[in-house]
């Protein structure tokens, strides 16, 4: 396990260094793509705390992404507050929203939990849609006042890289702490974990808040990157999309979801150039994963590797 963590650490450092070198390639397109992937990667990693580590299927995770995005945009633009206040405040708001929703959701499990998170997610969508004076309604909140020091494409990319790296490191520490291990125990057998004295409800609530907070961070980045927030970000299909990223990468590995986000997002951008029917492609990809690759890309790699190991 130690050796494996060390390898993961070195691999991560290598990926971060490679990413930091992307702007030197001189392609604006690649810089934008990398920024978007980094944001979605963090979004997917945050969802995995809930799904991979605690086994709770949230179908309303986009809500906290959107709350982070809207709050950051409104604080920066409408209230003209500096980034150093707006961004943390937006992240805390996303966390508080998750704490409120989580209070209701963790009372239930499995199917009920999934449906309730979905309903709450759509409540956030409904509020964003109807509260026109604050959120801009279905026109979206446009013209976010992004601070000057991260105003251009390159500085924003580095800003995103730093925020996502630090956030991922924090998530990694959380997931590998005693808290994270206990979460896995609860996922594997809720009743048995309860018998040894774990307050499973409180633990799942904490996981819910952690997941929501980090989704909020991704949301703030997304709002500043696009210089706008749109109601679609809170829609349930967005929650479905990030679930697919997580599943595609592999639920039970820490960085799997980030890989899934990179693969799916790149696929989406490239397919959108050829056809407007991206959903049918996504649906088909998803069907293939479900029918043939239940453990995602990471699982596939592991399976191939163990097959080779057996032969050797």
């Amino acid at each position: 396990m130690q050796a494996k963590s060390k390898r993961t650490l070195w691999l991560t450092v290598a990926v971060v260094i490679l990413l930091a070198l992307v702007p030197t390639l001189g392609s604006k397109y690649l810089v934008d793509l990398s920024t978007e992937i980094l944001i979605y990667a963090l979004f997917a990693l945050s969802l995995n705390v809930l799904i991979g580590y605690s086994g709770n299927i949230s179908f309303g995770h986009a809500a906290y992404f959107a709350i982070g995005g809207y709050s950051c945009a409104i604080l920066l633009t409408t209230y003209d507050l500096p980034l150093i206040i707006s961004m943390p405040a937006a992240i805390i708001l996303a966390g508080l929203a998750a704490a409120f929703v989580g209070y209701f959701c963790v009372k239930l499990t499995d199917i009920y939990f999934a449906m309730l998170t979905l309903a709450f997610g759509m409540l956030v969508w409904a509020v964003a849609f109807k509260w026109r004076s604050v959120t801009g309604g279905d026109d979206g909140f446009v013209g976010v006042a992004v601070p000057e020091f991260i105003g251009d494409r390159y500085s924003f990319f580095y800003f995103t890289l730093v925020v996502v790296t630090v956030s991922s490191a924090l998530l990694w520490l959380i997931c590998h702490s005693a808290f994270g291990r206990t979460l896995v125990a609860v996922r594997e057998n809720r009743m048995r974990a309860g018998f040894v004295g774990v307050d499973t409800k409180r633990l799942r609530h904490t996981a819910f808040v952690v997941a929501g907070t980090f989704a909020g961070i991704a949301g703030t980045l997304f709002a500043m990157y696009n210089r706008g927030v749109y109601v679609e970000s809170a829609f349930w299909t967005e929650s479905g999309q990030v679930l697919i990223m997580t599943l595609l990468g592999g639920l039970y590995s820490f960085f799997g979801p980030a890989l899934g986000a990179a693969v799916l997002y790149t696929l989406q951008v490239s397919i959108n150039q050829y056809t407007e029917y991206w959903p049918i492609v996504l649906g088909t990809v998803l069907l293939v994963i479900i029918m043939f690759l239940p453990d995602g890309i990471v699982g596939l790699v592991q399976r191939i590797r163990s097959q080779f190991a057996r032969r050797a």
Partner: protein
Amino acid sequence: MSMLANPTFLFYQVMNSISLGMNLFIIATGLTLILGVLRVINFAHGAFFMFGAYVCWSTVTFLGGAIGSFWIGVIAAAVVLGLMAFVIERGLLRYLYEREHLTQLLFTFAIVLVVGDVAKMIWGTDQYNVPYPHGLKGAVNFGFAIYPAYPLLLCVIGVVVAVGMWLALSKTRWGRIIRAATQDREMLAALGMNVPLVYTGVFVIGSALAGLGGALAAPRVAVSPGMDATLIIECFIIVIIGGLGSLWGSFLGALALGFATMFGTVIFPDWELVLAYVLMLGILLWRPWGLFGHPEEDSH
């Protein structure tokens, strides 16, 4: 607000609420039936509803709006959706029952994406209107007020579907088998029952109800892409309020949502959707498993 003091208006609002509620019930009862027996949340239920509305429009248009064409369209919608469900269940879904809930959830989500795009490929992005069927274009005179005939008929159809489903589930052999499948599928299989066939049957009937509900909704709403997206959430709210797998729960839940929506539009214009959620939360605080639901047993 003060409009509610007007008895005619109040009558209208009440009738509209029931009519909307009954239309929602027909759709939601299919969802809850599938949920109760197969333990699968079918996200594609909304897409099936939309497909049903499109099939009805196409049938009416193809028959040139002749007398009875609407009802042929309604039957066609139920049949087409039943067939689609048969292919999906036999071809794909039945391999997933033993897998995690997440897998099944994502499977139905994939079906939403595929069915939605297929509908877009067939019918484009235009908005279609289905006229009220012949003989139901007028209104019924109650003496103190008049009410349009078609929405009134929806109320009747809703009650007929509810009573029919109840009779079928509680009085017939097949109904007993379906109820047994919600309780203990292994025992049912041990007793020599063909459980996979029961599953296929339930998925087909549930999806046909979505198609039926879509066709019946077609004269009420604009038939267009995206009409499925909010409907599926309304169905979820109904099922959560009523309790998973409960027929009368979804009946009450649908009525509650109908009233919340119709009166919400008058009392809190623009916020009626939020009112529906508040209603749901209130009921959940009181009964976490819905009005007629039971605490789920721990699967471990």
